[in-house]
Structures are given as C-alpha cells and as structure tokens.
C-alpha cells in the first residue's frame, strides 16, 4: 500500500545548519498495516510523515502509494490518497467555518470542486449520522463555528474528516499530544475503532510508548533520520516499554534521555 524507498531529506543543505532529517529511510506498509512510530525529538518522525504527505519535496528516493509513484506529486493532489490529522488541533480544521462546512470540505477531498452547492440536505443527514458516532452532541451543532470547539472536539472532528472518505493511507502526527490525558485517551480509542472498522493503512507518530505498544500491529523506532528498530505481530505484542528503552540506549549508545518519553 505504501512503499518508502531509500528516502532522504536534508534541511539547509550545504550550510552550517545542515540537518539530515531522513537518511535513506525504507519502509513498506501492507494493506491494513497499523504502524506506530516512536523516537526522540529530531529523529525524523514528522519529516517522514510530511514527506509522505508531500508537504515538501524529498531530496532522494521514492514514495509509492497504492502502486502510484507520488514522489513528485504536489501535496494537494496527494491528498486524494492521504488522510491526515496534525498535532496542533488548530491545524486540521478551518476555525471560521461551520462544522458542516468543514465536513463538506473533507467530503470532496481528491474530487473536483465545481459550482454545485457544497452542502445538500442528504449531506447534512450523512454528517449528522457520522457525528452521532462521536457521542459528543455535535450532531445538533452543525452550524457552529469550528473555532468554538475544544481542542479535543476539534481533533475528533479532524479524525472524522480524514477518514470519512476512506483514505488509502492515514497519517497521524502525534494527534493526541496537545490534549489532556483523558481526552487523549478518548481520541486514541476512537482512532483505534475507526482504523479497525475501515481497515485503514495507518502510520501514527506518538511520544507515548505505551500507546505505541497498545495500538497497531507494527512498531518502528527512529533515530537520527533512520529506522533503528522494527517489530511486528507477536514480537510486538511481547514488547514492553523497558524493552524499547533498552533497544534505544543500545543503538544510540547511551545518549538516550528524552524525559518526555521516560515520563510517559
């Protein structure tokens, strides 16, 4: 479903601030794989996701989604294949537009936007049904501005928007990191439900090791722009947070002291 072949990305190349964010990363996701991505700050996790989404061009390698080489495809065209939820709850939705307008924008992801009325009565009914599944009472607030919702609510709606039109690939970039623990847990449970129900191929970055172990059938660990550890299936099931910490200190030669990861 997703093939990342030897992808490199260098920021500020040939300057004193040169930073190799991705150093020849290769990763293949099978249809229905749910991969969690962990690693310290600056490990290249977000860069990897943004490279797949097309936020910026890569400096080398290829990215293939569902058999289509998208390496040179601009971000808005790639959106046809990719659903995304960002870390910042403000990023995923248009704050000044209504809930139903936001959902309508997502409904047309990857489709031609023309001069037809953007929200029809049938759409409204569909949106209501979808929102009901969230159990937040949002189905009665279709014409509320998105900006008036809490961070958790916005993130939930963003998740809905990313998946209401089944994407070939779902990219989650620490989408619960900005939420309080209780809300984060709710959003994560919903993520699990939606991914399982729709059998979505998913790449999820998280800082929380427990979440990384709890969710998904595969896990990868990144460090300095490379994938340094990978586990799947039963091997992943048996992993503990301590195993991960140990693996990390082995590869990074003891430099591991990311307090955010230790605390979680």
């Amino acid at each position, binding site marked *: 479903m997703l093939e990342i072949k030897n992808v490199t990305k260098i920021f500020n190349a040939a300057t004193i601030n040169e930073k190799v964010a991705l150093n020849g990363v290769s990763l293949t996701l099978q249809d229905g794989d749910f991969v969690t991505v962990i690693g310290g700050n600056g490990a290249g996790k977000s860069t990897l996701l943004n490279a797949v*989404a097309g936020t910026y061009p890569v400096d080398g390698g290829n990215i293939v989604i569902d058999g289509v080489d998208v390496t040179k495809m*601009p*971000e*808005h*065209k790639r*959106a*046809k294949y*990719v659903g*995304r939820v*960002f870390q910042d709850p*403000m*990023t*995923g*939705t*248009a*704050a*000044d*537009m209504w809930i139903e*307008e936001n959902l*309508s*924008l*997502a409904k*047309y*992801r*990857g*489709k031609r*936007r*023309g*001069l*037809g*009325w*953007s*929200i029809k009565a049938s759409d409204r009914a569909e949106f209501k049904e979808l929102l009901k599944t969230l159990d937040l009472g949002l189905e009665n607030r279709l*014409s509320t501005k998105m900006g*008036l*919702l*809490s961070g958790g609510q916005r993130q939930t709606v963003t998740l809905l*928007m990313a998946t209401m039109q089944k994407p070939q690939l779902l990219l989650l970039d620490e989408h619960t990191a900005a939420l309080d623990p209780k809300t984060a847990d709710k959003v994560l449970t919903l993520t699990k439900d939606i991914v399982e129900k729709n059998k979505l191929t998913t790449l999820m970055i998280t800082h929380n090791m427990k979440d990384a172990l709890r969710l998904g059938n595969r896990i990868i660990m990144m460090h300095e722009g490379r994938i340094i550890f990978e586990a799947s299936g039963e091997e992943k099931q048996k992993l503990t947070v301590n195993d991960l910490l140990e693996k990390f200190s082995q590869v990074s030669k003891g430099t591991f002291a990311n307090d955010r990861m230790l605390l979680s």
Partner: protein
Amino acid sequence: MLYLASLPPAIAQGIIWGIMAIGVYITYRILDVADLTVDGSICTGMAVCTVLIVKFDMPVWVGLAAAVVAGMLAGLVTGIFHTFFGIPAILSGILTQLILWSVNLKIMGGTSNVGYPFGVEYFISTESLSKTFLYFAIILALLIGLFYWFFGTTLGASVRATGCNINMSRAQGINTDFIKVLGLVISNSVVAFSGALLSLFLGFSDANAGKGAIVIGLAAVIIGEALFSRITRNNFALKLLSVVLGGVIYYMVYQTIIYLGLDTNYLKMLSALLVALFLAVPYWKKKYFKKAAKKEKEVAENA
C-alpha cells in the same frame, strides 16, 4: 440646504465605492490577502469603459463587460506574481499597480483624463439620481446574489477554506495556488466593474482616481463590520450588504468633512489614519484584553 442637496449624489458615489469594497472584502477578508492591485485596477475599469464607449462607439454594456475582463486580467497578473513567481502578495499587488499605471495611460491614449461627451446621459448619472439608484439596487441585488451563490458552492467553499487555513486546505486536496489566483481574479473584476460605473457616473476617467482606493475599500469593510456585525451575524449576503453600506457611510463622512471646510489636502491622510486605527483595534484587543477574549471563548465553549 446646500449640504442636504449634496447628500444624494454622495450616497450614489458611496454605493459605487461600496461595490468596490465587495471586491476588497473578497481578498482581504475571505482570502486573507491584502491586495494592492485595487488602486490600479479601478482605473483600468474606468479607462477601458470610457475609451470603448467614447472612442469606439460601443454600447454601455460592452464597456462594462470589457472592464470586468480587464479587471480579471489585472488580478491574474497579481496572482501569477504571487503564486508562480513566489512574490509576497502585497508586493505582487504593488508591482501590478505600477504596471497598470502605464497600461491605463496607454489605454487612454497617453492622456491622464478622458471625458464622456457632454449632454449624453448614460444609465447612471448625477443628473437623474432616482433612476441611478434603481439601477444600483438591481446591480447590488445581482452582485450579492451571485457571490452568495458562488461562496456556497464547493469551489467557493474552497476559496473560504484557503483564506481560513491554508495547510488544512492543501491536506484536503485544494490547489491553494489556483484558488488564490481565482480569488484575485474575481476580486479585481468587481473592482474594475465599480471603476467603470464610477466613470459613467462622474462623466470621465482619470488615471489618478484610484489613488488610495484600497484604503477606501478597507475603510468600507471595517466600518460595515463594526456597525452591522451584530445584525449580519453569519449571513453572508447581509455581510456583503454591510460592506456596501460601509462604503456609503465612508463617503458621506468624506462629503461632510469637505462641506465643513476642512483643507481637502488632509483627506487622504485622515482616511489612512482612520483605517490604521480601526485595523489596530482587534490587535490591541488581543494584546491588552487577553482575559476578556479568553472568557468569551470559554463561555462559547460551554454553551
């Protein structure tokens, strides 16, 4: 009495500036781009309309239609500067404005002023105001209706989304570069159309008439919002109408100041300072009254 007599023509001209302000609203508020093309494209509209009617003996509607097309081209140039050349929006607008200065003079045959023949009355004029107001009402109804429809379509919604959150728009598959160009094209077509109306109403075209048009447009938008936001709420058609009314109010205040005998050399300075002040208000509110804003949001969330 003289003052009262000067009011109806002032209102009529205010409506024309208000129509221009709809164009400014589309870029400034909806697309979140400050487009300075306006100062040039309003004159392009004037020049194209006047020259076609006066020198080429075309019917009025051809002059108006050509002005709209010319405005579209002006917006297209700014859009290409901004998206394809990667020039910041404000600078792109200034560059086009400068280009248009030459173009407008060229259109007008090298002079900075072209008049309609005396004694010929077009469908709007200072002479028959009641007829003029009737036509304005029809034009406004059509224009506001058109935009109410357009911004409700999926394409129009993507223009609003691009102005609201560009990253999200790309993630939802919107070609934001195309949308920005489209928005600039639409906006400047409205501005040039208002320029054509202005030339018909005043009876001439002037290459200098556009100086400060963007400031008038912004003033109209801000006045309209400040005075009527409680009434317009979320109704888009009413919002556009409030912008037009903002233009009318601006121009009436302008006329009053002239009537009161203020040195007219100060007028542009005063409007600019007024707009600066109005633009500062939301910023100051955020900066110095943070608590109030936060509380407002909390109340809304719990509602």
